[in-house]
């Protein structure tokens, strides 16, 4: 089974520029998540999709972050304009709850550096 694919792996931009990250989840996984992981911290949920609908985006800074999951498969996370504090790893994960628990499969992440 192929894992969760993310690109790009690394991105360096100047503040106020824009950036987009792409994620392709495991085939058949209806739920897709974007997490932000700042160095030395645990992942923090930004947005959760169920198929192509948003389930939770309460922690997404909507003035600069946006995400979409057209057709309920792959997803794009955009930051515009970027700030220095957006430097982090952006992790995409997917899940297909079968046992009542919510086990996530993560991609390798996209590391963003904002200068």
């Amino acid at each position: 089974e192929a894992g969760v694919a993310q690109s790009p792996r690394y991105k360096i931009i100047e503040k106020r520029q824009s950036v987009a990250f792409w994620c392709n989840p495991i085939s058949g996984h209806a739920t897709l998540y974007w997490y932000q992981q700042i160095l030395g911290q645990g992942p923090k949920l930004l947005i959760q999709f169920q198929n192509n609908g948003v389930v939770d985006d309460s922690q997404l800074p909507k003035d600069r972050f946006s995400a979409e999951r057209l057709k309920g498969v792959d997803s794009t996370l955009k930051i515009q304009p970027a700030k220095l504090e957006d430097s982090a790893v952006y992790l995409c994960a997917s899940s297909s709850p079968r046992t009542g628990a919510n086990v996530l499969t993560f991609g390798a992440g996209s590391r963003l550096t904002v200068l």
Partner: protein
Amino acid sequence: SQKIEQNSEALNIQEGKTATLTCNYTNYSPAYLQWYRQDPGRGPVFLLLIRENEKEKRKERLKVTFDTTLKQSLFHITASQPADSATYLCALDMRTGANNLFFGTGTRLTVIP
């Protein structure tokens, strides 16, 4: 306020010993508690989960306990090996309508040969 705390940022142990990592939480009532392993430059990988009505779960050299009264989970790696060196994250599965996980900050484990 809600908190998830994992013991010391870093833990060093000798190869062959048992590593014990703790996860304490306040003002949460998780239905499940999960443990993930994260290697540098990689995403977290799921290891084990334990339900609120379970006291203990084992998988090979791994053991997890869950005490909802103490609001604590312990994660044990027996007969530790240098390959076990990684950051270990606990995650609370709240089973809310959104079904998302709340992660701790992680403990970086180093197993010294």
